């Protein structure tokens, strides 16, 4: 019985991983193919499309996306912790409703949010902040539900008895927050922050409406390119940005996010 179950378990993981990898492999092959016909024969592969990425056309959007995503990750991390703290830890009245409210931006299609923001800014005469400031604010709105949700999940799982024990031993609230609560929810928060970075870095539907002409983010530059040509440069840009994001995750892992979380951290 145990044997069958563990066989099924490994089979399931294998199938899921294959499912995840398949389209990405196709894309990587596309970025290495000499023409827009995708080939899987390694001896036909070429790196020439990656050379095309080192122009201002791709570097400028990349830098802009990087900057915006960093700021968004920082802001939404702080705000997310605070919100989860209030809802789950303090259990303020109406928390289910407040949580639903905080998650509500998720349920509005991004284009509607984008249009709504543009309409609103233009009605109150603030079209001037379109571009980087509006992008940052809108991406924070987008990322906040995830960060809040993940911080809240860690807090829900967090063993209240530890906290109560500390309290009964005379720890002040500040001490408890600093030494018990924060370290316990850190993995959840850091994965939320990484998410925020990735969400902002890859965003398309919201950004379409908020970018300022001549100052576009990387994914917007990519879809514009896709609209007009289906050549392998497209695939190369995406493979390159995928490698970049892997690097970012690696960095976050060093900071203590996923490794802590995945090693079971303080458990």
């Amino acid at each position: 019985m145990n044997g069958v179950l563990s066989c099924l378990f490994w089979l399931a993981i294998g199938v899921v991983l294959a499912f995840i990898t398949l389209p990405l492999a196709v894309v990587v092959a596309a970025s290495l193919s000499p023409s827009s016909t995708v080939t899987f024969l390694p001896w036909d592969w070429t790196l020439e499309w990656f050379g095309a990425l080192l122009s201002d056309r791709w570097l400028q959007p990349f830098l802009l996306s990087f900057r915006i995503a960093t700021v968004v990750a920082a802001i939404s991390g702080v705000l997310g912790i605070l919100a989860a703290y209030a809802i789950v830890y303090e259990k303020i009245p109406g928390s289910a409703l407040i949580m639903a409210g905080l998650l509500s931006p998720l349920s509005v299609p991004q284009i509607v949010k984008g249009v709504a923001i543009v309409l609103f800014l233009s009605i109150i005469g603030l079209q001037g902040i379109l571009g980087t400031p509006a992008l940052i604010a809108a991406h924070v709105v987008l990322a906040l539900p995830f960060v809040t949700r993940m911080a809240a999940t860690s807090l829900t799982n967090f063993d209240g008895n530890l906290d109560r024990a500390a309290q009964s031993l005379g720890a002040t609230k500040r001490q408890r927050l600093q030494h018990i609560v924060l370290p316990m929810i850190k993995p959840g928060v850091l994965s939320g922050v990484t998410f925020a970075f990735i969400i902002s870095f890859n965003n398309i539907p919201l950004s379409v409406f908020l970018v300022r002409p001549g100052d576009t983010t990387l994914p917007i530059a990519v879809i514009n390119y896709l609209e007009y040509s289906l050549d392998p440069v497209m695939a190369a840009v995406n493979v390159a940005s995928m490698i970049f994001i892997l690097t970012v995750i690696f960095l976050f892992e060093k900071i203590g996010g996923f490794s802590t979380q995945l090693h079971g951290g303080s458990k």
Partner: protein
Amino acid sequence: MNATRYLPLFLTMAFVGAPGLAVAESLVVNSYGGPYEAIIEERIIEPFEEKTGIDVVYDAVGSASQDYAKIKATQGQPGFDVVVMTASQSLQGCKDGLLEKLDAAVISNLGKLGPSLAAVAGPCGAVHEVQYMSLLYRTDKLPSPPTSWSSLLAPELKGKIILPTFQNIMAVFLMEIMSVARGGDMIDHIDPGFDAMAELARQSIGFEQSSAILESYIKDGTVWAMPFWNGRAQLLVDLGVPVDYVRPKEGTIPLIATLNVPVGARNKQAAMAFIDFFLEKSSQEAWVTSYKVGSARTDIDIPDNVRKRQITTEADLKSLKLPNLSHVAEKLSEWGERWERDVVSQAN
């Protein structure tokens, strides 16, 4: 902990070499990407920058309808100074008061355009290019060139044609031509057009929106015939793809592209100078020969073989059918619903 070591590094990386916000006194031109972008950069923008010393920032974001949506949402301050759209948006924008009226006293080359073509776009649009919907087909698959739009319904093309989605204005144009061909008209008596499109939908492998994807189907031979803008069709021919295009006997509808200036543009003077430059005889000649489109200027000197396949004279224009674009714009929503019900549902 580690965070203190890595975080500053990370933040520094993010903000290193933050370029100054680029657009101080430069002219922002919004248009399309792909082959369009490469050609406009080389043939129009670079010469313009050289001649005037004005720095142009090229913005390839958005289709014509998306650009117009943005102009409308920002009440005429979308952030670009010149935008490439079509006659439909030019008329709509003039009506909504969102596009600047263009003055022949400022843009002297406006007066050089053929009057009937220029009139189609109204006072807010400068016609800088004319294409038409052609019937593109595989020369290696069809024994003889098709002569009629009805050829798309031939039994041997079953499962070998593809249609544009309704959001691609080409779909509306095709429906109108079919309507006229079957005894209807282009606005009020459109029913025959819908019937024809339903038949075409049953014949087709489906719908695609972007030109890049549409053309990929004919390039790889999945599809043997489809409607396509003739400029892009010509680019395919020049690439050596075994295709050719015709203007079928029922006639066709032109796509009239315009340059527009939103009312809230920051650099109107430079914008007008850019439009004037684009309409210059030499610029139009360069554009017609490199982007393979027609021109509203009748006095340009271009090779005969180019002229033969393009719209360059008033007579060429008269041979085309032109729906009342404002009326079409009003019908769009109603037709869109009907398209979903009667046409999309018929596809396999």
